[in-house]
C-alpha cells in the first residue's frame, strides 16, 4: 500500500463535511447529472455492494459509559450500585438489568471485560479508542472509520465511506483521516440530518447544471495535471461525492422507514439515529458511527444511566435484531465503546468518575465469535484479573474481524507505518 502524496499538513486537512458545508446552492442543480451514476445508485447494486463488502458500525457512548451499569455488573458488592444483573439469552452470561432487550440478543454479541487503557482523559481516551495508539505529539494516526473507509470502501459506492451520526449540530471538522488524506474524513450528519446544500436547486435547469459541471471538470482537470495534491484531489473527489450524494439524498431520510420501526427503535434521537444507521448500512456505507450522549456521569450516575442506557437498550437491541434478520450482521462488525469506563467507587454525588483500569466493550457481527465473554475483572470490578488488553489490541481485533491484516505496512510521508500498533496484537478469543 502506498500513499505517496498525502501529507499531514494543516493545508490538507480539509474534511468532506467542511467542503459540503461550503457548497453553493448552485451545485444542487448538478443532480441533473445523476443519470451518469444511475447504474451505481440502483438499490439492487447497493445490495450487491453490501453483500461483497465488509462494513463496520460503531456505537460511541460519549463521555464514558459505566461498565457496571452495562456489560460487567457487580451487584451486592461495595461498588455494585443499586441495579441488579439479569440473565441473557446465553446461559451464564449476566448483564445489567438496564439492558433487558439487549440481554435477549446476547447470543449475537460478545463482551470484552478486561480492558485497561491507562488513559483517564476524555480527549486522549477518545483518540486511543479510535486509533488504537496513544496520543503523542510525534504523529497523528487515522481513526478507525477512515482506515475502514480507505481499505474496505468501494469507490463505486455513491455514499461516503465514513459517515458519523452525531447527536448535536455536527462534528468537529477534524482531520480523522490524518495521512490517509481528507477524502477519508467523516461526513457528519448533525442530529441525523441530511448534509446541507444537497437538495436540487429548482432555479437551475438540468441542462444549465450539466454545462456548469462540464466547465468545472475541465478547469479542475487542467489544474490537477500541473498541481495534483491531496487537497486538490480531495476537492475533486468530494465534489463528485456530493453529486452522487444528491442522487441518494433519500438515504438520509428515516421518515421513509415504517412508523412501526421508528416506534420500535424509540421515540428519541438515538432511536432515530440507529434507524438511520440501519438505512445507511443497507445502502452500502462502509463505516457508520452513531454517537449517543452523554455518559460522563460524575453526578447521579444511576439516574443518568437509567435514562441513557434505557434509550440505548431499546435502539441497539432493535438494530442488532434487524441487522441479523436482514443478513447484514454477518458482514458488519459492530462495536459499542467509549473513551473509558467509570470508577467502581461511587462518589459522594452518587456519581462515578473516569476509569480506564478495568472496563468493557461489546462487539458483534463480522468475524466475531458470538455469545462469548473474554476477560474478567475481580469481584468488585476494580482490577482486571484475566486477559488484560489495551487499545492497540482492540484495533488489531477490529481489523482482523473484517479480514484486514493489521500487521501490513504502508508508506506515508516517507515513513513505513504498520496499520495497527506493532506493540499489540489481536484478541484471538473474540474472533470467529
Amino acid at each position: 500500500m502506498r500513499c505517496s502524496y498525502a501529507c499531514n499538513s494543516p493545508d490538507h486537512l480539509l474534511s468532506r463535511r467542511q467542503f459540503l458545508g461550503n457548497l453553493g446552492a448552485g451545485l444542487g442543480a448538478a443532480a441533473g447529472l445523476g443519470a451518469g451514476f444511475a447504474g451505481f445508485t440502483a438499490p439492487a447494486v447497493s445490495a450487491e455492494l453490501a453483500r461483497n463488502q465488509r462494513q463496520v458500525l460503531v456505537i460511541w457512548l460519549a463521555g464514558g459509559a459505566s461498565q457496571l451499569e452495562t456489560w460487567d455488573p457487580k451487584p451486592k458488592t461495595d461498588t455494585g450500585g443499586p441495579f441488579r444483573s439479569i440473565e441473557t439469552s446465553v446461559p451464564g452470561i449476566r448483564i445489567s438489568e438496564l439492558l433487558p432487550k439487549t440481554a435477549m440478543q446476547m447470543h449475537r454479541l460478545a463482551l470484552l471485560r478486561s480492558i485497561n487503557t491507562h488513559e483517564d482523559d476524555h480527549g486522549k481516551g477518545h483518540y486511543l479508542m479510535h486509533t488504537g495508539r496513544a496520543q503523542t505529539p510525534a504523529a497523528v494516526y487515522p481513526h478507525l472509520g477512515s482506515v475502514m473507509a480507505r481499505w474496505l470502501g468501494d469507490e463505486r459506492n455513491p455514499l461516503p465511506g465514513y459517515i458519523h451520526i452525531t447527536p448535536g449540530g455536527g462534528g468537529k471538522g477534524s482531520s480523522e483521516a490524518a495521512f490517509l488524506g481528507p477524502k477519508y474524513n467523516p461526513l457528519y450528519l448533525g442530529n441525523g440530518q441530511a448534509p446541507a446544500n444537497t437538495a436540487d436547486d429548482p432555479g437551475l435547469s438540468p441542462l444549465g447544471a450539466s454545462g456548469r459541471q462540464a466547465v468545472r471538470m475541465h478547469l479542475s482537470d487542467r489544474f490537477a495535471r500541473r498541481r495534483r495534491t491531496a487537497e486538490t484531489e480531495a476537492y475533486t473527489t468530494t465534489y463528485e461525492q456530493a453529486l452522487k450524494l444528491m442522487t441518494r439524498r433519500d438515504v438520509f431520510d428515516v421518515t421513509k422507514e415504517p412508523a412501526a420501526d421508528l416506534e420500535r427503535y424509540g421515540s428519541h434521537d438515538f432511536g432515530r439515529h440507529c434507524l438511520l444507521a440501519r438505512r445507511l448500512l443497507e445502502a452500502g456505507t462502509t463505516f457508520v458511527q452513531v454517537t449517543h450522549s452523554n455518559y460522563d456521569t460524575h453526578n447521579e450516575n444511576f439516574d443518568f444511566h437509567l435514562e441513557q442506557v434505557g434509550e440505548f437498550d431499546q435502539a441497539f437491541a432493535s438494530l442488532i435484531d434487524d441487522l441479523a434478520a436482514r443478513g447484514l450482521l454477518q458482514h458488519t462488525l459492530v462495536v459499542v465503546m467509549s473513551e473509558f469506563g467509570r470508577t467502581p467507587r461511587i462518589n459522594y454525588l452518587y456519581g462515578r468518575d473516569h476509569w480506564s483500569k478495568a472496563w468493557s466493550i461489546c462487539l458483534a457481527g463480522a468475524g466475531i465469535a458470538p455469545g462469548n465473554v473474554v476477560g474478567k475483572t475481580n469481584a468488585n470490578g476494580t482490577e482486571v484479573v484475566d486477559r488484560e488488553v489495551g487499545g492497540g489490541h482492540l484495533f488489531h481485533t477490529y481489523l482482523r474481524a473484517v479480514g484486514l491484516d493489521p500487521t501490513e505496512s504502508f508508506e506515508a510521508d516517507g515513513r513505513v507505518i504498520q496499520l495497527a500498533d506493532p506493540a499489540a496484537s489481536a484478541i484471538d478469543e473474540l474472533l470467529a
Partner: protein
Amino acid sequence: MAAEPEKTHIARELKHGQPLITCRFDPTGRFVFASSEDETIQRWDLQAAPSADPAHPKAVSFEGHNGWVYAVAITPDGQTLLSGSSDGQLAWWPAVEEVPRPLRMVSAHRGWLRSLAVRPDGKQAASCGNDAKVRLWSLDDGTCELELPGHSRPVYRVAYTPDGTSLLSADLLGLIIQWDVRSGKEARRFDAAKLHLYERGQAVDYGGVRDLALSHDGAHLAASGLINASNPLGAVSNPAVLIFDWNTGELKKLQHPKEDIKGVAWAVRFHPDGFAILASGGTGGGFLWFTRPAEDHEFFRFQLPNTVRDLDLHPDGIHIATAHHDGIVRLCAMKAKG
C-alpha cells in the same frame, strides 16, 4: 422549648460506616432509622445508655433487601417500619424488634422504588418509583388498593396531606399531582417545572422534585430540588425550593441560598413555628438552611462537615437528623449548646 435555628449545632453523631441515603425518626422520637448503600437499614435507640465506644453507638441492622434502600417510613404507632429498595421491593418490618426480620415483601415497582409515605391513620401506604407508577397499599394485608396513573417519568416523592384525604406525588419533570386517595381521581396539579431542566448539550433530563412538605398551618406546600443546572453531569446546580400557596395552587416563591452554593436540596420539612428546614448537598458541601415562606433567601444557614442526602425533624421540634455520605447520621439541635 422553642426552636432557635440560629443556634443550630451538631449534638451527636451516629456512625454506620457505609454511605447513607435516607433517615427518619419514629413518631415517638425514641429511634432514628437510616438506610444505606449496603442494602441495610440501621436503627439507633436515642434513649439507650451510651455505649462503651461513643463513636460507634450500638445499632440494630435490618437486613433482607437486595438493593439500595431508598425509602423508609414508619406507621403512626411506631410499630411497623416500611422500606423500599432499588429492586422494587416493599418490605414490612417490626420496627422495634431486637432482631428484625421482614414480615412481608411485595414486588411493588418495576425497578427502583423511590419514596414511601404512610397515611396519618396508619391504614394505608403510598409508594412511587422509576416505573412512573404511584401505588396505594393496604398496611393490613399488603394488597395494592389503587394505582394512580398520571406521571410519564420517574416519580420521586409521595406525601399525604395531614388529614389523609389526599396524596401528593411529584416527578422528574416537576409535575406534582394531588390525588383523592379514596376515589383515586386526580384533584389538581402543581407546576414545579422550574426544578427540571433538559440539558440539550448533554442530552439529559435533570432535577425534578426531590422532596415535598406541607406547612403545619396548611398554608404552604414546599417542593425542593435544584435550579441553574448548567452542567448536570458535573453536578453544577444550585439548591432551591418552591413555595406554593396551598389554597390557590399558585407559586409564591422560588427560594435559593443567598450565595452561589452548589448542590441539590434533597429534603425539606416545615417546622411547627412556620419556617422551613432544607438539607442540601453537593460539590458546595452539606448545609442546613432555614427559610420563611415569604422570603427569597435563607435567614440562617448551617454548614455540615459532609454532604447531606436527607433530613428529618424530631417530634420535639428541636432536633434534626441528617444522613450523610460519610456513613454518619448527625443529630443537630436548634438550641444553645450545653
